[in-house]
């Protein structure tokens, strides 16, 4: 499953010349990324580099100019819920769970737009196999769980939407390093199921250790890209990221 073999295929997500911003204030400048099927791609960068803005532009919450193609479908003219329907699913920063609903209802909420009841029931069992903790806590209110469990719940909820591309924003935020490592292992499991992951992280080492490829963002631009194992030792990346 090396990235080299993946590159021969057609990209799942192709973004080029994307610029976007907030009310006349440009944030993203001419962003181009490509993600291939069943890849884990890390998008790293320091605070305020524009990572979340890029996710917002991809999920069509934020207007912008450029080209976004997912699975041969042009996303630019779509509304956020239409983009969601094409398979672009987000696990938002801060998780945004339904705190006063049970874990199971949270997961079912992930399948809100799906009509295939039998497949949804199957996927629910799959999630419980993937996250045994969630199975133990299926009747518990989501808001009463620990941060790591809530992040698992949010990821499982996202997966319940049967995404083509799962975009995870700040997965490790506020979590103990050991929990974050466990979640990275889960991503590898998810990839085996054929789900492609775009992981947005501030924790550059964590993200690049589990990803196939990486993009480094700085002030709204992609400044570096390459295989994750090359990027992790690249002094240029270290410099750009740490701002030395």
């Amino acid at each position, binding site marked *: 499953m090396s990235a080299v073999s993946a590159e021969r295929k057609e990209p799942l997500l192709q973004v080029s010349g994307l610029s976007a911003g907030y009310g006349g204030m440009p944030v993203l400048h001419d962003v181009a990324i490509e993600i291939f099927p069943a890849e884990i791609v890390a998008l790293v960068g320091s605070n305020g580099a524009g990572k979340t803005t890029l996710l917002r532009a991809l999920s069509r919450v934020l207007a912008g100019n450029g080209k976004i193609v997912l699975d041969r479908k042009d996303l630019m003219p779509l509304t956020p819920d239409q983009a969601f329907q094409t398979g672009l699913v987000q696990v*938002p920063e801060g998780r945004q769970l339904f705190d006063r609903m049970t874990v199971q209802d949270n997961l079912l909420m992930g399948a809100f737009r799906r009509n295939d009841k039998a497949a949804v029931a199957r996927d629910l069992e799959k999630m419980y196999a993937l996250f045994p903790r969630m199975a133990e806590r299926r009747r518990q209110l989501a808001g009463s769980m620990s941060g790591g469990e809530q992040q698992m719940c949010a990821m499982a909820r996202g997966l319940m939407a049967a995404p083509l591309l799962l975009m995870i924003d700040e997965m490790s935020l506020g979590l103990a390093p050991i929990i974050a490592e466990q979640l990275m292992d889960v991503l590898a499991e998810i990839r085996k199921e054929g789900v492609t992951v775009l992981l947005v992280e501030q924790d550059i080492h964590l993200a690049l250790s589990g990803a196939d490829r990486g993009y480094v963002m700085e002030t709204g631009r992609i400044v570096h890209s390459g295989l994750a194992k090359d990027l992790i030792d690249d002094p240029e990346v270290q410099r750009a990221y740490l701002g030395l």
Partner: protein
Amino acid sequence: MKALQIPAVLIALIVLAAVPWFGSDVLVQFGINALLLAVLAQGWNIIGGYTGYASFGNSVFYGLGSYGVGIAMVQWELPFAVGLAFGVVLSVAFAILLGIPVLRLKGHYFAIATLALAQVMTAIVSNVKIAGQNIGLVLPPLNNDLLFYELALGLLVVATLTIYWLSRSRFGFGLIAIRENEEGAAVMGVNTTLYKVLAFALSGVFSALAGGIHAYWVTFIDPESAFDISLNVKMIIMAVFGGPGTVFGPIIGALSLSAISEFLSSEITSIAGLFFGVVVVAAVVLMPRGLADMLRRFRTTGWRYFAENIKATRL
């Protein structure tokens, strides 16, 4: 418990439907008022209870429903049913036109914006010629309390069936998701704007029908009483007292509070308002999730239920 629910509801319904045959005129008139208030509480339940948007604009729908009937019957001499339909059309149009901007606001801001809507409507209708300006309209009288009673009861049944459907449907699930975490709902592909506007409009349909029936019953409407904000406060109190976001809570709240209020004002006229206020304050402190939640939990927690709620409100 579940198996007993359906027969219990049916028996309650038959008893309620039979009231005009064994009850006094006073009881029937009280019944019409109480049932219409229950419909209003159920209407508010859709937008306030299920969707989590505390609307103070439902009295606008009520007023539009009243004026729909008033204008159709007095100015155009059309039948009552056409007037009801006209009121519903006005309400739905209002819900869509004003819901789209107003439903972008959240929490207190939404409440205040909708509060202003009722005030604005009073001012507008007071200057519209076809609505009788600030004098109002006098409708042709129909002295048939039996009909109004059964009509109000029928409307309550339809409203409750709608909410029952809501509580089990995907649409209702989406509304609850919006209430619990609107951003989370949007991320999971719920078209939140569409859902909120639909909930607002559906809430408006029932409020408008209640307003229309009430207008024909009392045969007189004027801007002050049709767009009365205290009516909106009443429906919120009743829905919250009974249990917002439940199927039967608002009915129980509306009927029990109407009865308490009626009893107090006939027994101790001078300080009835004070007592009513005390009942409401006690309810908010002791059972903030309403009667429905209390009845469900009381069996397991007993009197601790109240103690826990007092602790939770940090008095």
